[in-house]
């Protein structure tokens, strides 16, 4: 093997190695662009016809909210109680050691309201609603239900996709509010009952410290999470083509992608807001 040939092979390897991150970056960027376009088209079709409470899409939206929000309440309640006991109670009970109660209030708002709440709710929505949407749409696509509807002039974006995205975003917000309230109240009540009755004051301190600015961050973050989870799920559901084996494959892909997106968006928002 000549020196020139070895050099050429090494250059090829180096190109392959250095090119790989670039190719991955381009691939992921294109995927994000696809997702954004997909969701924008669905929302455009929805808003163009102004059907928020129209009978045609109303039932789908409500059914999805009931499944995503109401049916998830037992799980969310359990998680809220556990988080309240593990985090809120522990943080409040060591408030004297850590410093002033204001620091604890800020810590609770940052950790429970703005981080743990949205994140845990997102994980539950990804595992329950996200996977259900992929299986539902994937099977509809597989069995020709979507094609049959389209052949009757039904716009799938408007009829199936947008209601799922909207209802998941609404449910994510509602679930996080519920989770946060349970987590905070549980910790404060246990702490007040078993450690110091004065800890009841944390209820008022937290509500007074939850400024409109923090409130808007809370709302925006949750809506983005819900929007992204549903978009990824719908997109993957509609990518099912002909084989039943594609349904679990797309479900797994959707869960992994949604989790990754939630992590990335959470990090970006944290960076933008707090740094």
């Amino acid at each position, binding site marked *: 093997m000549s020196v020139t040939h070895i050099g050429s092979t090494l250059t090829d390897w180096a190109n392959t190695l250095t090119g790989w991150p670039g190719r991955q970056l381009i691939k992921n960027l294109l995927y994000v662009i696809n997702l954004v376009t997909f969701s924008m088209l669905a929302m455009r079709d929805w808003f163009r016809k102004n059907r928020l409470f129209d009978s045609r899409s109303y039932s789908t939206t409500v059914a999805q909210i009931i499944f995503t929000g109401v049916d998830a309440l037992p799980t969310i309640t359990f998680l809220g109680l556990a988080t309240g006991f593990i985090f809120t109670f522990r943080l409040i009970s060591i408030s004297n050691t850590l410093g002033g109660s204001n620091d604890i209030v800020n810590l609770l708002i940052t950790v429970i309201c703005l981080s743990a709440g949205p994140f845990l709710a997102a994980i539950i929505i990804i595992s329950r609603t996200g996977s259900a949407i992929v299986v539902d749409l994937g099977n509809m696509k597989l069995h020709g239900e979507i094609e049959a509807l389209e052949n*009757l002039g039904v716009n799938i974006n408007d009829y199936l996709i947008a209601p799922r995205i909207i209802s998941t975003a609404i449910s994510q917000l509602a679930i996080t509010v519920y989770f946060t309230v349970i987590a905070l109240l549980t910790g404060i009540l246990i702490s007040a009952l078993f450690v110091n009755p004065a800890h009841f004051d944390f209820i008022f301190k937290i509500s007074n410290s939850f400024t409109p600015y923090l409130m808007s961050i809370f709302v925006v973050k949750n809506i983005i999470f819900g929007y992204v989870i549903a978009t990824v799920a719908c997109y993957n559901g509609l990518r099912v083509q002909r084989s039943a084996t594609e349904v679990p494959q797309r479900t797994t892909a959707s869960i992994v992608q949604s989790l990754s997106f939630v992590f990335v968006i959470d990090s970006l928002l944290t960076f933008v807001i707090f740094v």
Partner: protein
Amino acid sequence: MHHEAIIECQRLVPEELPFEYHGDALDFGIARGEVTSIIGPDYSGKGNWLRTICGLEDPLSGSVHIKGIDTMNLSEQDWSMTRRKVAYLHEDIALLSAANGLANVLAPAFYHQLDKQAEKGLLAESALELLEQIDPDINLDDLPAYISKDHQFKIAVARALLLEPEVLALNSPFAHFNPDSKHKFQCFLNNQVKQGLSLLIVTHDIGYALDISDKIIFASRENIIYFDSPQAILDCDLPMVNRFIQQTETRSAFDVKQ
């Protein structure tokens, strides 16, 4: 009956035929209340011809106009309108698996806001009336998974007809029917045609096609031939057409004997 064409095909050749096609292009139109059957040997691309005529597949060449609109240049509104005016169903058409029979019939009508044109109760009443005409024995409370194939197809037909299409395009509609229910369903179709519905049908039931059709299209892998009357195909002296008619006649005679 007036003869303004609802669908008009000019020099049409489908793009998605599953074989190389070197035959003629198709020129024909379908007017209100007319019945056109597409017949021919198996695997001759009849379904592709039907789907292209309905504007569901792109033509390789030529054009299809539905209500005067070129199907290659449809706006979103035109697309929705053409799909409602020309309802296409194939033998294995899928219903919404999460909705029962009646909800399946009503869903597209609600989507198209027909409940605003008529009262909601009236729409449900029309749906029930239609289903009663098609088959009074259909169980409308069950999910499609628990409904037989022929009843599923009848529900799909009712779902399409509730949108008041001008053309009903059916691809092998009698595939899941037993002889008795097939006859009843054919009578229902005949009544719909008398009321002004146009029918475009791909069928292996040559007797029915000859009996009901105003026009017949014979599709084979080699060529497509348009006949402006059932008598014209019977009088045709082309060997491939004769062979097909004779084969189906022999088969029908054999079926009757069996």
